[in-house]
């Protein structure tokens, strides 16, 4: 897929000039990334605009390699008259670094093989958005949220955000890439009056590459209100070992603790509890995790990664077995491994067959986690601990909302407790993950 525009032509010419000047200044190799972003943000509160913000930003990032020495620096100033001094500075910074035999641009043989399919990353209708249209979107979401929230509403903030980003990258050893992407987001955050002084806040924000793929604005606002009202009366319960369901939009938070230690950087730096687990059973047979950069219109879709390697679909876990690590160029050289790409794109867990409602009926006493608070995951040991907010059910019947509670476990144990995958992948994210069901997790409370 090749992409050209007036900006891209300007980028191409500037990148060629920067590479030429950088090599003349003493660099053996270099890579330049150029970008331009146009965005608009409109927020409404109390049925009037609270914030209107609009701007265009641009940036140039230059990486310099001189005999295994490296420096990188960014600037918003594209004028050649000032870039000359900037380039000299980056080259001088690289010269004083210590020599590191692994610091090089990637071998150009790895640049080949980029997909030619159209990933549909830019909405052709994005330019048709008008100021009035943006205001109308925010107002419609606010109206729906206020109506659904009724007398419990203390405050509703609704908004619209859209951006168009153009990027261009070129290296001195043969890599060239260009992209134009768009995103459009809308949603609302509502605060409600609960018992005493509690004022729970819930939200619903959704975003897509193409505006036409957003759900109805009325639905967006109503769900924000419903999710807020669902927090009313949240209290902690006694510490208990229970099955729990992590709602689709929250799964990425816990999953991060599993895929972050798969990065070659963490493995080479001995900060990964998964370093010796390749080819081994790490989770239950229900744990299948794919990284798919080719998803049309996907928020994480891409043609190439940060090293310039063509993006590829990968099966990271199959039926609980860890298949491969996330290996970028630099750490592939340090580890003596083949690079596989160090970054992720769209994370996908294939959906199951049953809805969350159906699953809850069969679980007995269980907690549905709808949000997280605080917490951390230790990439070296696999231990994690995170605050949870959600709903307690018993034999399919709602018992109470829960708050101020916590779950803790070790990833090597936790993913073996995965007992079901629901049929509801969350599509407004690059982590397209369905709700997941885990057995026997300690939920701490009173």
């Amino acid at each position, binding site marked *: 897929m090749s992409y050209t525009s007036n900006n891209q032509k300007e980028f191409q010419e500037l990148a060629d000039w920067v590479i030429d000047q950088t090599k003349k200044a003493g660099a053996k190799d270099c890579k330049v990334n150029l970008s331009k972003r146009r965005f608009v943000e409109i927020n409404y509160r109390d049925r009037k605009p609270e914030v209107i913000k609009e701007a265009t930003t641009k940036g140039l990032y230059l990486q310099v390699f001189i005999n295994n020495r490296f420096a990188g620096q960014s600037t918003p100033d594209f004028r050649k008259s*000032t870039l000359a001094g900037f380039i000299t500075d980056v080259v001088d910074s690289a010269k004083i670094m210590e020599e590191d035999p692994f610091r090089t641009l990637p071998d150009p043989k790895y640049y080949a093989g980029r997909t030619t399919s159209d990933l549909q990353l830019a909405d052709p209708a994005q330019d048709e958005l008008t100021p009035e249209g943006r205001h109308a979107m925010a107002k419609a979401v606010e109206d729906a949220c206020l109506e659904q929230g009724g007398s419990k509403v203390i405050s509703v903030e609704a908004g619209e955000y859209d951006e168009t980003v153009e990027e261009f990258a070129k290296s001195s050893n043969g890599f060239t890439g260009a992209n134009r992407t768009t995103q459009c987001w809308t949603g609302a955050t509502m605060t409600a009056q609960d018992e005493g002084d509690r004022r*729970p806040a819930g939200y619903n924000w959704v975003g897509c590459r193409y505006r036409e793929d957003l759900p109805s604005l009325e639905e967006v606002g109503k769900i924000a209100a419903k999710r807020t009202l669902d927090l009313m009366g949240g209290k902690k319960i006694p510490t208990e070992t229970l099955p729990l369901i992590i709602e689709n939009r929250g799964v990425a938070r816990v999953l991060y603790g599993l895929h972050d230690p798969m990065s070659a950087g963490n493995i080479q730096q001995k900060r990964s509890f998964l370093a010796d687990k390749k080819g081994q059973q790490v989770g239950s047979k229900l744990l299948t995790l794919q990284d798919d950069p080719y998803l049309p219109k996907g928020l994480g879709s891409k043609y190439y990664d940060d090293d310039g390697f063509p993006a590829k679909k990968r099966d990271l876990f199959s039926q609980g077995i860890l298949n491969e690590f996330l290996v970028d160029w630099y750490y592939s050289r340090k580890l003596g491994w083949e690079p596989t790409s160090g970054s992720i794109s769209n994370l996908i867990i294939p959906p199951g067959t049953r809805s969350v409602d159906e699953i809850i009926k069969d679980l007995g006493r269980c907690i549905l986690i709808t949000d997280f608070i*605080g917490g951390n995951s230790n990439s070296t040991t696999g231990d994690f601990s995170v605050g949870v907010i959600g709903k307690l059910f018993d034999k399919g019947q709602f018992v109470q909302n829960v708050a101020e509670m916590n779950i803790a476990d070790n990833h090597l144990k936790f993913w073996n407790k995965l007992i079901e995958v629901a049929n509801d992948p969350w599509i407004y994210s690059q982590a397209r993950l369905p709700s997941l069901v885990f057995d026997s997790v300690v939920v701490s409370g009173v």
Partner: protein
Amino acid sequence: MESLSRRKFIQRTALAGGALFLLPKLEASMLSDNSPGNYFLKEFGIDESICQKLLAKALSKGGDFADLYFEYTVSNYLGLEDGKVNQSYGDISLGVGIRTVKGDQIGYGFTQELTEAAMISAAATASTLCNMKATLTLPSFNRLKTGNYYPVALDYKGIPANSKLPILQNINQKCFGLSPEVIKVNAGFQSSAKRVLIATSDGVLAEDLIPSGFVYASVVAERNGKREQSFYNLGGRRDASFYTDDVVNKVATKTVNNALKLFDAIQPPAGEMPVVLGPGVTGILLHEAIGHGMEADFNRKKISTFSTMIGKKVAEPFVTIIDDGTNMNLAGSLNVDDEGTPGKKTTLVENGILTGYLHDKISAKHYGVEPTGNGRRQDFQNYPMPRMRNTYMLGGTASADDVIRQAGNGIYVEDVSNGQVKIGEGDFAFYVSQGRLIENGKLTSPIKDINIMGNGPKMLTNIIMLANDLEFYKGGAGQCGKNGQGVPVAFGLPTCLVKSLTVGGTQQKGGQS
């Protein structure tokens, strides 16, 4: 004229960009200034006349108030891995943010180009908030005189860039030298110099030079096939003279000792129990659980649990909480905030009574009070809002040993990270990376990797004892996030006993897991 000034400026930056860290031996000959001057006039041709013109444009369709925030920041990072200082990263941030305010509404535009045409365009964007005629007459400017809570004794110009590498090499050597169980060391040195000029439609003109940075170590240690890691940093609003051998030693020693301690750490039983917060960094709990709820925008919108509590008792009479921009060299200190209000000290809770909120100009006008100097923003691309600076609780009269003894059985928290609060509910969580069990009034086994949950207002009323040992967080890596904007903050706490908080873990009380 303008383009010449700017070119000269960027060229100077190109020299300075690689030389933001200095060795102590170079101090004596490098005395410089961060006193208010005419920096943006000299380097960019930004004079009072262009400021007046931009403010007039921002208010050309009406509005109560407008301001300009010019920023020029040069940031550098050096990283060490596997024994080599092999990464150098730099960033230049330059531009102006222009805000139009009408009541509590904000119009905001910014540009990275300090040309008159680009700036007028950004002002026009901000003005779209309103649809009336200009009503304000702009006064002439008064240059703001401020305190200086982070003097810069060193001039960065002319320093050999390679003079900064030994700091990281020393950290690496010291970490490995402290224990044969250390198997990996990463170290880094982040530094930035930020110049700002603020011009407001109520006549304030203020300039500042803000140095900030930190040096850190991160180590992995191995014992009997088991690995543990830790991280520690020191810094704040510091110039290069701060990074002495003593600082290097403290960073290396603390990082290694913390990692080794974790080999003996256990997870405490889960559930509610007394919690003693050790002095210093545990003040993050004060920041998360209580401080955010006292930011006035949340109260103006009635979404904070503290919005009806002014003048009411929120804690025992021995509790006094302060948010302060005037502490020397702490990460949250401010000579002037990002709206042109001078750095101040603000009492939030006095002898247990909630006395006030943290205000920017919008909330101050709403409440009919003076701004408290808490209007802060991440950079020129963002508008300001009420943010904390250095938030701390004054010490009590007991000794730390008395406080631990009083707890009986519970946990003692030494180091924390990843705090978060839900403003409306007041519920908070934070992660304990270092701590100990308290058994029969004494510190026993180390603990790790647990979360602590609670409710801010409830916790405040549950503080039942304070020691006389207030300490501040002295790092520079602490960033507070709010509405997508990060700003550096610090916090402080004396040893403090909370009657009960929920401790997360995998062990239920009584040993069931």
